[in-house]
């Protein structure tokens, strides 16, 4: 069951690389977050004793990552009036190929080779690592500030999955801190995207290239 959600998560991450439409990307991000929150709920509720820790975390994910952030992004898309990623720094086809390569790296190298002595439950950890890497690569391949923002959140999703997968969740206080951080961070970034749009009249970071050397 968990593996299925993980697969959904991974596929969503990969598909994010495949499209230009920002709305679609936001939807995929939401799907990702939903998968995460389902994993958390599943882990929390499936055992005999309810793991409240997991449930709380799952709930937080639902609120912050499934509801608030996508909504903010959605608003932002309309504010800055940019529905499609126009310019990519890496082409779509090659970015999918690289994405597959990264998944291969996570599944075929990091976990089996580097962590071969560690008992790893399922492919959760591989999926999580792949998620982080894909999120990072998503940021590399997109130019608009908004997409980069989305990429950050995608990376955080990967991290979250990793935390859940590996350890059954970080200590709660830490988890809370992280959530708070992400929320504030994303909001600040969103604010800044807004400002960039105001000042530069575009959110294409191609034009953010005055500082060099």
């Amino acid at each position, binding site marked *: 069951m968990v593996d299925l959600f993980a697969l959904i998560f991974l596929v969503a991450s990969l598909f994010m690389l495949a499209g230009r439409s920002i709305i679609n990307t936001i939807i995929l991000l939401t799907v990702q977050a939903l998968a995460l929150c389902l994993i958390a709920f599943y882990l929390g509720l499936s055992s005999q004793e309810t793991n409240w820790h997991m449930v709380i975390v799952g709930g937080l994910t639902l609120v912050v990552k499934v509801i608030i952030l996508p909504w903010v992004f959605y608003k932002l898309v309309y504010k800055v009036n940019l529905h499609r990623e126009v310019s990519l*720094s890496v082409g779509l086809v090659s970015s999918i190929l690289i994405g597959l390569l990264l998944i291969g*790296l996570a599944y075929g*190298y*990091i976990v089996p*080779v*580097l962590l071969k002595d560690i008992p790893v439950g399922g492919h959760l950890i591989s999926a999580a690592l792949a998620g982080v*890497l894909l999120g*990072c*690569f998503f*940021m*590399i*391949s*997109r*130019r608009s500030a908004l997409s*980069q923002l989305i990429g950050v959140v995608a990376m955080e999703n990967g991290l979250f999955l990793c935390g859940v997968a590996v350890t059954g969740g970080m200590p709660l206080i830490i988890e809370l801190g992280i959530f708070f951080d992400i929320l504030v961070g994303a909001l600040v970034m969103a604010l800044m995207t807004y400002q960039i749009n105001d000042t530069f009249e575009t959110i294409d*970071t*191609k034009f*953010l*290239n*005055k*500082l*060099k*050397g």
Partner: protein
Amino acid sequence: MYYSGRFFFFYKQYYGEGSVMFASIQGNIIFIMIAIYLIGAVMPFLFKVNSKMSFITGCIPGSIAGVLGLVLGLAGLFSTDPFGVSFGHILPGVELIIQIDRLSGFFLSTICLVTFLIGLYSWEYMKIYRQENIAWWSFYYNIFVLSMVLVVTVNNAIAFLIFWEVMTLTSYFLVTFEYRSQNVRKAGFVYFVMTHLGTVFIIGAFFIMFNGFGGWGYDVLARNSISLTASEKSWVFLLALIGFGTKAGVVPLNVWLPLAHPAAPSNVSAVMSGVMIKTAIYGMIRLMIDIVGPGPTWWGGLVLTLGIISAVIGVIYALMEQDLKRLLAFSSVENIGIILMGIGTSLVFYSWAMPVPAAIALAAGLFHLFNHAIFKSLLFLATGAIYYATHTRNMEELGGLMKKMPQTALLFLIGAISISAMPLFNGFASEYQIYQSLVTISSLRVSGLWSIAGILAAVALALTGTLVAACFVKAFGISFLALPRTPKAAAAREVPLRMRFSMAPLAALCLGLGIFPQVAMNSLLGVVDQLIPGSRVPELTTYNFDLALLLLATILVLLALSRLLGTPRVRKTATWGCGIETDAAMEYSAASFSQPFRRVYRGLLQPQRKVETKGNLSPYFGYQIYFEEQVKSVLKEFLYRPLRSLTISMSKKWQCLQSGNINLYLGYVFITLVVLLVWVR
């Protein structure tokens, strides 16, 4: 080892003490001396900008401390055991001990003797810089001299390096004192950068000997160096040679010297040229001979070769100069070369395990060092006096000063004669000893090659000697003799008594040491005895006194005879100018004086001649002829300039990494991560 034995006495007394402790009366004097320098550095700030008091408080403490330092130095030079004072651990693992052994004593007394007189000189001389801020000058100057004093007296590598760099730093600010001129700024920059890069090599040399614990004391390093392999020792040697060679101005590394020395005020250049570059020689001797000990013969060979190259190239460029101070600066390169010839010869002997000739050669090098300190500062000060009187250092604008400022002229002449190694004066005495050492290399017949090398080195020294003579005939003849070439020179007046007075002792020393060189040589052999084990040398005797006596007697008798025989009538007229009234334009100029040399040594100098005739008639009757002949510095042209432009262009290429593209930046992070992940296996 003899080394630890020598320091035992000392360490029993001081080691492990945390706080300041005064050993004895000498310790007190050391402390007072340092305090006086610091007072001299700070005091002028307390007075109104450039009031009379700020000149006095800036210059005089340096002189007073100089006297104290001289006393200390002489005490160190003639005492059997080193003495000193500890200031405790100033930094983690670094105990500051000022320790004066004979080598330190020698250098200390040289530095202090010269700076004592220069302090007096500056008191008057700095008045031409009235519009500048004298307080800053005094600050840098006193700290500069203090750091030189400390450089030669500390016995710890880290402390040495700290004061070494402070010395560089303060002298940088002294060089850039007249910062309004672009050339001065450039000179300061080149000086600072080159010597700073040189310091890296020195640090390297020290650190190869460091073993991670036990501290940075010279004695510890000496003990560590015993266990070094031969190649490591050679690295120490090479690094030290490059590092100290930069400061000393050894030829491929001398670029800064002819820039910086002229840029500084004359009294500062006198200190820099007279004593500062000597601290590099101190470092070389300390490191190569005292700490590392004997090495392979090629060490000596290399030093000797560098010495020869520096001497010859230095003097050839000196001969080409029109600027008196640049000329003197190049001549410093040459003299450092001669000193290095002495040291190199000594290293050769040392490697052959012949302590006595090694000692004599080293003592000869040191003797020349002392002599150079004396006459070079004399010459720089005299040049300063010219500048004071005429506000120019360009020989082509001088002339006829012999009549205007006869005493300065005499002092300059004595300096010039001494530096040209004429018998009776000290330059000859030390060069003589170096000749002797070179002939000894040859006559020992250790190998045929070395025998020939010894003779060739002597030939190089002879060549240098003649070129120096030519160079100073030009320097003195063009600037002091004949007719003044400009109104500036014609309006010159004799400089104030204080300045002449501070130069006179130097001139007297030139003559005194020329007549009694054995005094200096024998005490220097005492210094060397401390460095090279088993080199007790019987008293050296020289013929210089007899020669001087005979020569002077002959001159006097001849003079008397020519008087006694009745003076024929002497008629004074103007010089015959082929029917035209002679004027300054007809004189031989500095450029024309050196023209035959430019031609003969054109392979090295690459003179670029440019002649333009502006006239409507045939080329022989142009009414206006523009003539320019520049010599190229081969080093600058083919080494430093390409190096510089290469660095800059490569840097510009490298800058493209930071292109401003955020995707690229993220890519860097990503790639780094992936590479590390792959690397981790």
